[in-house]
């Protein structure tokens, strides 16, 4: 048995830090590499194109004051010093962790890392292809944040003996296409629901620290403030063009709200051990996150979903069960599960929405 290796956070000089990292690499190369399933994590980000000319044509002058304040804040980068390990980063007993929990938690870290990484690729591409200074600056700043988050998660993965593999770079990759407005709807919601997810876990663990089985949760508060600002930026972008949040687009907004909430519900129910370890009931968690997200999205969306409607929870559960049944099923059974899932989604989508007037100024502060 090797002596415990010091953590890079304990290093006092760059040389020492590098030496510790090298020692860790040696240890992992010899010991962990045998655990083939564990040793190599292939990141598989996706690559997108969009209508860059349409994005370039965005004019933020109607929200100039709010826009400049937000960009100023992002440039000042109050979270810059936050993503560093300090004495709060406790040693993690990976070997003693229950295998099911370890599997789910690692899946959580990898999917988060991939998402941050994909966000970084997307935002960077927009920055590079655009000519509108307001837009390119925003995307540059968001790419910076995403890369920083990915680096932080990567470090947690390294501690668990996992090495990210960027092999996708030299593999053939196809670029798909999204309309700009779909990027706004999806990423806006993704950032806001991301904030609600992180802050809900953070507050829960603040009140119940005995459930905090990994130190990364201590960093969620500032982390989610980045997500919050990104969401604010997309809200301002949508505010520049009232068409994006009216008429037929309201049906798109409803679609994205329903799909994003339903996806989160299904996904979280795939990680029972993870939620149990956190002391969180996934149904309570989903409801809490949807409530917060709905409140936040009132800043720009003219509708919110009626998550208290009797059809809501019942059909979420049906959708989730159909999704479980779909896996491994073949032929007619698979088809039946797909139809059940589709029908549950239709029943969710057709629940009447709550309508409200949106405020004149969209800007919000993180208050949860």
């Amino acid at each position, binding site marked *: 048995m090797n002596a415990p290796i010091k953590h890079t956070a304990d290093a006092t000089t760059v040389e020492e830090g590098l030496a510790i990292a090298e020692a860790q690499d040696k240890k992992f190369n010899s010991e962990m590499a045998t655990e083939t399933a564990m040793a190599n994590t292939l990141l598989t980000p996706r690559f997108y194109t969009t209508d860059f000319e349409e994005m370039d044509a965005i004019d933020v002058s109607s929200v100039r004051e709010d826009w400049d304040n937000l960009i100023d804040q992002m440039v000042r980068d109050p979270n810059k010093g936050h993503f560093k390990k300090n004495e709060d980063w406790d040693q993690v007993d990976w070997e003693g962790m229950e295998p099911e929990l370890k599997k789910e938690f690692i899946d959580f870290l990898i999917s988060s890392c991939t998402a941050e990484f*994909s966000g970084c690729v997307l935002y960077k591409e927009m920055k590079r292809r655009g000519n509108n200074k307001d837009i390119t600056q925003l995307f540059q700043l968001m790419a910076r944040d995403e890369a*920083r988050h990915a680096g932080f998660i990567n470090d947690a993965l390294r501690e668990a003996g996992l090495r990210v593999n960027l092999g996708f770079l030299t593999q*053939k990759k196809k670029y798909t296409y999204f309309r700009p407005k779909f990027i706004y709807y999806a990423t806006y919601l993704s950032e806001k629901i991301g904030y609600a997810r992180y802050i809900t876990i953070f507050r829960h663990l603040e009140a119940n620290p005995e459930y905090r089985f990994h130190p990364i949760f201590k960093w969620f508060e500032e982390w989610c403030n980045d997500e919050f600002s990104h969401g604010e930026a997309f809200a301002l972008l949508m505010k520049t063009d009232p068409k994006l949040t009216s008429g037929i687009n309201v049906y798109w907004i409803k679609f994205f709200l329903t799909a*994003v909430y339903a996806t989160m519900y299904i996904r979280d129910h795939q990680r029972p051990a993870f939620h149990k370890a956190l002391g969180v009931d996934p149904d309570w968690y989903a409801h809490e996150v949807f409530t917060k997200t709905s409140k936040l999205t009132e800043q720009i969306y003219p509708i919110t979903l009626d998550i208290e409607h009797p059809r809501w929870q019942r059909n979420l559960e049906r959708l989730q069960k159909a999704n479980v049944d779909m896996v491994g099923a073949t032929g007619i059974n698979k088809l039946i599960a797909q139809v059940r899932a589709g029908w549950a989604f239709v029943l969710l989508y057709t629940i009447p929405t709550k309508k409200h007037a949106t405020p004149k100024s969209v800007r919000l502060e993180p208050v949860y």
Partner: protein
Amino acid sequence: MGLLKKEVEHAPCTVEISHKFESLHAHVRFNNGAVIYPGDEVQVQGPEIMAPFGEIVSEEREAKIIRASRLEQLWTRLTGDFEVMELCEFSFSEDARL
């Protein structure tokens, strides 16, 4: 660009990988200003690239760009939107159970 025919071109590119604690990112930039359109495929030629932990590496490589046919480009424009949910952080995993 043909209606059905794919064309292949090669473009010099710069690959930058940061494998630092402060930033994990990887970007490919085409040095000749080549632009990627919907449905195109890109492959950076040569062996796998990875920066050692704590470092940023930048390499000059050649990228093979397989241009989508006109039909494929149209198809990607029409159907790409269906995949937009991938942009969500907690997108679907392959399996319903881990």
